[in-house]
């Protein structure tokens, strides 16, 4: 089954931790992603730029309204995602746990969603 793992991360600590520590987190992600490839579970994924660079678009009175910032102003913001192919929800949540553990100086919350199977 395919699952999307959405990474919601507390971005505030970025202001106070060193470049080295940020780089180390990035390195942990790279090696984790390689592991996921090797295990044959990785279908895709990306890291996202910080949420202050987000633009939110909606229709207002039939016209496009673009606003600066993310859709929801919560403490944790969407920071990246993986699409994985695994046997069941237990495997998917186990991968999500591994991602949580990559974070040492901030915390991440993972939302795991099955990808819908569209029948033609």
């Amino acid at each position, binding site marked *: *089954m395919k699952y999307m793992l959405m990474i919601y991360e507390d971005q505030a600590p970025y202001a106070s931790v060193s470049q080295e520590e940020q780089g180390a987190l990035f390195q942990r992600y790279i090696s984790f992603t390689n592991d996921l490839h090797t295990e044959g579970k990785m279908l895709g994924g990306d890291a996202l730029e910080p949420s202050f660079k987000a633009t939110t678009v909606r229709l207002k009175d039939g016209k496009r309204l673009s606003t600066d910032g993310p859709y929801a102003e919560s403490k944790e913001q969407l920071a990246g995602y993986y699409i994985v192919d695994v*046997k*069941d929800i237990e495997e998917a949540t186990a991968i999500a746990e591994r991602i949580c553990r990559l974070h040492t100086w901030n915390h991440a919350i993972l939302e795991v969603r099955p990808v819908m199977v569209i029948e033609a």
Partner: protein
Amino acid sequence: MVARVIESVYREERSRILATLIRWSRSIDDAEEVLHDAFAAASVKWPGEGIPAKPGAWILETARNRLIDRRRVEVRRRELLAQHHPTALVVDRSEPEVLADDILRLFFTCCHPVMSPEAQIALTLRTVGGLATPEIARAFLVPEATMAQRIVRAKAKILDAGVPYRLPCAEDLTERVERVLKVIYLIFNEGYSQMRQDLSFEAIRLGRLLNEWLPGEAEVEGALALMILTHARRDARMDDAGRLVMLDEQDRGRWHSDEIAEGVGLVERALRRKSLGPYQLQAAIAAVHCEGTDWVQVARLYEELLRFDSGPVVRLNHAVAMGYSCSWEVGLRLVDAIEDLGEYQPWHAARAQMLLRAGKAAEARVAFETAIELSRNSAEREYLIRVQATTNPA
């Protein structure tokens, strides 16, 4: 005769047959429907053809044939639409016909941690217990439509989120068994606090089923013993006028002594396994109450229980036991040290009783007032009003 046999097969074997059908079909809905069809077929055929030698096996076989028929029709329909999803449609016959532990798979799937506790309870009562949705809705005081939606969503989550239909691995077993016990015990408690004996009885039935298929687990035995021992006092909880009677004033002649003997035997067996847990300790406490309440021993057991659960409810019970075994002043000090129980009725009720026993009538009266306001059932409320009346200055 036929109706009696069908009823007994339904009661004794339904959940196990359903569990097997779910493994074959990978769908709770399909399994429930073909099982329903099979029971309907039995009530039509058995009166004329006679009751089969193994009625349960007949039901399973008939239900399986229905399942295969349905899948064939579905495959044909999809072929006509030029769609191919063969794996989702095949009846899985690679595995043995009946696995003894199918019922456990069903328990673990219904109580899977990816679902909310409410969904786990509803689904367990519906599929393992075989209760109808309106019954479950009544038991949990929610509208029928809400409960129906809760069950539909839970089934959809199992199917679409890929909740596996298998036994947990050895390292997860303890935690997953704990989840199942929690669901069963919540059902029991709901029955107990609402004085709904049918619901308490259903929880005990589920506990027995789990203990039968997962033998040798100390906490499963402990939870079952706890429920049996609590339930054994049901007929003494109220007097003939429907008024609540506290434990130490109950007529022990109304306790079910055979059930107490069973419960005590279970908890003793569990404790001998040397794998102590919170259910065993609570069962041990219940057993001490049944044998004439030695409060020093009860206080000691609560102290032990605090090592597993230092939450406010256990602390409250420990405080009460200390009140009885030590002094009401000590008990009150412990009660007042508990925080976060502002709206919890038993805290106010226990505190009021202790104040009364400690000779502080005026303070007790105020505490009773709050406890009465927060009461959930009328028997409890009437009891408190009666006791409060004794605090009135002569």
